[in-house]
């Protein structure tokens, strides 16, 4: 019977009925302390420390602090120190603050080469779907499940349904992976993928860099999807080859077999015309509330839309390009990799951030930061008036000092425009790094296809 990539990975990992073996477990400080505490109380050990990797990201200040002891917020400090203590006690490798490999968990996994095709990967974080870009089955879990994986290296899990999102055509000039996934969520809705593992396919996906594929898979959860994945190809293999934890040589025969067979069936299919996607900007309080930059704030169709417009302080009919911004945030597990920073830097080179805008760039990892600095991108951003920060989740979710003030309007390359996500009362507009960079310069959204 023809099988999809998802079917093949699932079949290779089912230990028993509805019991899935986990190849890699990524751990961060926010969703793990209660899991370790329960393990301790039950006298249980971590079954496979060699398949577990920890990093600190959510609480990390991006001011260049080099040790947990330097975190001023007491609760944040305790949470990071607790992770360090738990990692030491249970023998788990950790890249905490001060490590040259520290960073956002979904940036460092691929960067170190621990994220590989064909694997099952979990983390107590919904954006674990990012790793599916490598042709792995990767999804977020809660703290009870974190504990379960630590203790057993498995998850009790019924096989989710499958969904194929097939893109026709190619992305136009100035249109990025971020726009593609935002437009997709706009089309299918924030509930469109619930219960399904989504495979993204078609020429527009094949044409994306690994960074672009990670951006697409990252936001799968915003469309409700359990996991998102792209079948691995030469782009994938080239990216993995030579990384610290990558196999040498790469098991290319095994990895090349991770293709969806002709005739494999999916429970649900969606076709998206990639050629018609324009640069996207969200107007509301979930990622499905999105329009093209040439569009306008829509008339509210539901009570939820009405509430969103009130929270966002927007009037229907307002052109998106007239929305003025207070802040620009370039970063997060969605868009903080070297390719994202290069794209943004290219647009700001030789320009100045608008005097009304406070703009920051937060590399996703210390390695991305070092690479960007080696290329001089930090100077490009600094000269233009951006704040150049150290690696962490930063203003994506405001669990660290990087928080937007009540009422402030933010153009953000992150993944969630939920109420209060970037700071209580803050108003978030999700965009691509290119769109964020141009918005920082102009002080409002612009259509980068026509901006020079």
């Amino acid at each position, binding site marked *: 019977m023809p099988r999809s990539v998802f079917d093949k990975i699932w079949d*290779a990992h089912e*230990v*028993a009925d*509805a*019991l899935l*073996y986990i190849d890699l477990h990524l751990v961060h400080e*926010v*969703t793990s302390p*209660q899991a370790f505490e329960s393990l301790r109380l*039950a006298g249980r050990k971590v079954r496979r*420390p*060699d*398949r*577990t*990797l920890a990093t600190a990201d959510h609480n990390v200040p991006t001011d260049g602090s080099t040790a947990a002891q330097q975190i001023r*917020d007491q609760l*944040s400090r*305790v*949470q990071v120190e*607790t992770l360090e203590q738990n990692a030491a006690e249970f023998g*788990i*490798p950790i890249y905490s603050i001060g490590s040259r*490999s520290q960073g956002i968990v979904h940036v460092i996994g691929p960067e*170190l080469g*621990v994220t*590989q095709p064909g694997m099952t990967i979990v983390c*107590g*974080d*919904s954006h674990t779907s990012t790793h599916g870009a490598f042709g792995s089955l990767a999804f977020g*879990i*809660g703290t*009870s*499940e974190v*504990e*379960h994986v630590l*203790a*057993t*290296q*498995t998850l*009790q899990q019924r096989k989710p349904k499958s969904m194929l999102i097939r893109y026709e055509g190619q992305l136009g000039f100035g249109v990025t992976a971020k726009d593609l996934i935002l437009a997709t969520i706009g089309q299918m809705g924030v*509930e469109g993928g*619930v*219960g399904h593992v989504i495979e993204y396919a078609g020429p527009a996906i094949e044409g994306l860099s690994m960074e672009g594929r990670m951006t697409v898979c990252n936001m799968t*959860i915003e469309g409700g999807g359990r996991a998102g994945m792209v079948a691995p190809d030469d782009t994938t293999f080239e990216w993995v080859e030579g990384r*610290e*934890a*990558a*196999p040498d040589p790469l098991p290319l025969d095994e990895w090349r077999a991770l293709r969806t067979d002709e005739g494999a069936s999916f429970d649900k299919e969606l076709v998206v015309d990639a050629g018609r996607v324009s640069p996207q900007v969200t107007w509301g309080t*979930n990622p499905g509330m999105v329009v093209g930059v040439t569009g306008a704030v829509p008339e509210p169709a*539901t009570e*939820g839309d009405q*509430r969103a417009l009130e929270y966002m302080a927007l009037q229907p009919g307002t052109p998106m390009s007239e929305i003025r911004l207070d802040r620009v945030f370039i970063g997060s597990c969605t868009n903080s990799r070297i390719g994202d920073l290069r794209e943004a830097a290219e647009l700001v080179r030789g320009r100045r951030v608008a005097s009304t805008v406070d703009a920051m760039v937060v590399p996703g990892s210390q390695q991305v930061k070092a690479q960007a600095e080696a290329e001089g991108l930090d100077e490009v951003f600094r000269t233009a008036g951006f704040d150049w920060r150290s690696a962490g989740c930063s203003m994506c*979710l*405001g*669990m660290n000092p990087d928080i937007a003030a009540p009422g402030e309007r933010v153009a953000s390359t992150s993944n969630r425009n*939920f*109420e*209060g*996500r970037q700071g*209580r009362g803050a108003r978030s507009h999700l965009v691509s790094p290119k769109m964020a960079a141009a918005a920082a310069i102009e002080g409002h959204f612009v259509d980068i296809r026509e901006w020079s």
Partner: protein
Amino acid sequence: MRQVDVIEGDVTVLDRSDVDTDQIIPKQFLKRVERTGFGEFLFYDWAKQPGWELPRNPILATGRNFGCGSSREHAPWALEDYGFAAIVAPSFADIFYSNCTKIGLLPVVLPEDDVRAVMAAGRATIDLDAQEVSWDGGRASFEIDAEVRRRLLGGLDDIGVTLQQEEAIAGYEAERERSGPVTTSLT
């Protein structure tokens, strides 16, 4: 895990769709390293808005796609700590649904019309064993995974259940485990 059997009582109505876990428990409360005491921060920002009311009842009835967004189990912890024992909705986000079942907070999926009827009735009885919700003037059955139901009814420890399959796990590791990556070899 808390044992679940029959949940009976008044219904709290939160008639909103796509309620995300950032609203259920905002990020500033995720810094705690304990599992308890989240109830007082439930819907922290919404609770400050005029007209907000969320009576502490055993049952919460709400809109589609409840619990979307972040995987934070703090959201079910907060709802449970606040006093809810079951949540009735037309649909739930996947991770949230799973998280609820892990702590004995019963998520019940019913057709939208039935959720509306439960909201209007203001009081309901949820029988997990019978997989049935009843209220004054109506009743409806609901689907739940048989294994999840068994664990909830028995208040079973998930890890304990899985460790009974130790032989299968060890066998899998011995025979089928793929090579690499080995995180402990990273420098």
